[in-house]
């Protein structure tokens, strides 16, 4: 129970050191015997393409054969291409902003592919792969970031809530949704996706409290991509984030987030746990944000090129490509992905170029579900105002 101070290590997969944080008070890691060992990172496919074993996850990966792996690769590559297209569209002024997912494809595809179609996702702004794997259309990835609308798809179609910007807020929605499933006697699981930075928000801890208290069927997926904008994960926690959940009564696993097999297996374990009535489960997927926080960000101000280069060697696509190349399956998978990507990204470009901005009065739509005298008055006034311009200027406005 007394603390023992372990030397911190340099490899961010094994401990949350704070390389960029100069405060002396933060410099020293304080591991604790109750937390999972720092090096305890579940992996089934190493960066070198070696297939490994893991006591917990093996049970959940047996059916991931080469064909299935090729399918996962196809998905990941598709996401990467779509992501690049999003960045390009932003650079070309077609989008206001884009939050790149590059480097995080394995966790996003792995967790989504492990789910039933009607398991319900509550994600942040960065879970591009979840949207793609759930069948979002090109326009869905364009119109929001372009600033035309907030909600681009009907959450009940994709079983994905509109991506959340308020850090951590969606975790509570996921728990509430799961409480609803309990009451309906349904077999769906709610999935709460969030980042390493989000773990500091009170809402995320409260979500664990409620989920544990009610034994709600929810899976927490923390994509620890090492950074919250400019803040290294070591500033949020000196210890692995997966170690927080057990104290709340939630079993957790810390998985190599760049290993799509491990991510899939971990998610299957977690889903099974939740779906079978044993309550919430928690996954920390250790990954890396290879790109900037968003297209507005300049990561050179806070992290080294060396660090990024190191993580490029751990690229989630590379290791799968290696395996597939060996098996002679790479070319076909790539061709399929590139073909899908070409179509999808062309659709994105089209969606951007053809986007029409809604008329001014649309700002007043959908504020309320039922008639509202306040909105009615403002609509009347605004429309009279606009008509005045129409009279004056023949509708140029």
């Amino acid at each position, binding site marked *: 129970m007394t603390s023992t101070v372990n030397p911190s290590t340099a490899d961010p997969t094994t401990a949350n050191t704070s390389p960029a944080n100069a405060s002396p008070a933060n410099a020293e890691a304080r591991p604790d015997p109750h937390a999972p060992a720092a090096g305890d990172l579940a992996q089934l496919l190493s960066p070198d393409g070696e297939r490994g074993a893991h006591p917990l996850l093996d049970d959940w990966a047996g059916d991931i054969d080469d064909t299935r792996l090729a399918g996962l690769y196809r998905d990941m590559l598709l996401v990467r291409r779509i992501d690049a297209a999003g960045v390009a569209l932003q650079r070309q002024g077609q989008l206001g902003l884009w939050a790149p997912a590059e480097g995080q494809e394995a966790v996003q595809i792995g967790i989504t592919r492990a789910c039933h179609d009607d398991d319900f996702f509550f994600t942040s702004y960065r879970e591009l792969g979840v949207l793609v794997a759930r069948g979002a259309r090109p326009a869905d990835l364009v119109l929001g970031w372009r600033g035309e609308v907030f909600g681009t798809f009907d959450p009940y179609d994709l079983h994905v809530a509109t991506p959340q910007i308020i850090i951590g*807020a969606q975790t*509570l*929605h996921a728990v509430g949704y799961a409480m609803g499933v309990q009451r309906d006697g349904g077999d769906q699981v709610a999935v709460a996706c969030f980042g390493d930075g989000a773990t500091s928000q009170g809402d995320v801890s409260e979500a664990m409290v409620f989920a544990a208290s009610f034994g709600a069927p929810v899976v927490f997926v923390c994509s620890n991509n090492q950074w919250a904008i400019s803040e290294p994960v070591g500033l949020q926690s000196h210890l692995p984030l997966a170690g927080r959940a057990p104290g709340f009564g939630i079993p957790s696993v810390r998985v190599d987030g760049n290993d799509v097999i491990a991510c899939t297996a971990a998610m299957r374990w977690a889903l099974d746990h939740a779906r079978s009535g044993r309550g919430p489960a928690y996954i920390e997927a250790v990954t890396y944000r290879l790109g900037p926080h968003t297209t507005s960000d300049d990561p050179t101000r806070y992290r080294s090129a060396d660090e990024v280069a190191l993580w490029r060697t751990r690229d989630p696509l590379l290791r799968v490509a290696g395996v597939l190349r060996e098996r002679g399956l790479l070319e076909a998978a790539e061709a399929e992905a590139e073909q899908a990507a070409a179509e999808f990204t062309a659709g994105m470009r089209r969606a951007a170029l053809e986007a029409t901005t809604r008329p001014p009065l649309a700002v007043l739509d959908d504020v309320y*579900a039922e008639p509202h005298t306040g909105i009615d008055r403002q609509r009347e006034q605004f429309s009279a105002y606009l008509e005045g311009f129409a009279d004056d200027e023949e509708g140029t406005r």
Partner: protein
Amino acid sequence: MTELTLAKALTAGLGQALADDDRVLVMGEDVGALGGVFRITDGLQSRFGATRVVDTPLAESAIVGTAVGLAMRGFRPVVEIQFDGFVYPAFDQIVCQVAKLHYRTRGAVKMPLTIRIPWAGGVGAAEHHSESPEAYFVHTAGLRVVAVSNPQDAYTMLRQAIASDDPVVFFEPKRLYHSKGEVDLDADIADAAPLGVARVVRRGTDVTLVTYGAQVQVALDAATAAEDEGVSIEVIDLRSLSPVDYRTVTASVRSTGRLVVAHEAAREAGVGAEIIASVTEQCFEYLEAAPQRVTGFDIPYPPAKLERHHLPDLDRILDAVDRVLGRGHRAGVTS
């Protein structure tokens, strides 16, 4: 008709809503076995079970945040915030999620959430137990905000709020929980005045006095007192604070030419400011004097022994009535 306290009328309203629609849930701190610290949920857990009347862990942001998720799953959660002063930890979920989800999703996601708040002062309570935070929610587009002042409205409006597909912040004046009135428990909520409508609770010709919640009774007392002095006050119970029923309010001001607004909440950017600004915009030419506010001071809610100086009372309302009548001042000179 049944004679009930306002508290019991709320209990009856919740019970009816739970009975009518099995998607309705009640959740909050101590709402189960205890029946809530004000006993508003008394007996509901044993009647409807612990999955429908849910004691939650102690965290307001999570109470509202999980209610959002439940609403997304098709439930109609009725959330109890234990006291007015404890709603702030949930403010982010209310402002950024509850109020915006329908707009964010272009109507795909509805938020039929009712947030009940035992509310306001005058009960000699400890710090944080007498707050009037309604203006924060009135200023937040996407929410409906109502305040009840009598048992019948408590019963009917609570059921209407629960039936509404929009989120409703529902204020219950603690000070009136034990006040009694006749309640028609069988009335159809569709036949009752809709949620957004104000009510003229006393007709008058000289001054329009607009208020809501526990202040309605104070206003009626003031009107009675004023009558003795030959002043006829029309008293309007707003009932809905957002939207405000300006049709009813401006019709009255057009006939009286004089407006006083009373509330317990602080004055700066409060509901009174909104009403005076809107009424002035909408019927300036009818105003015969500057509209007046009678409100709490712009101070943190004071200790219990001092609260009576902070709260509008009969004298302060009559003082404002005198001012709006250009009568010099009943007591003192307010500049």
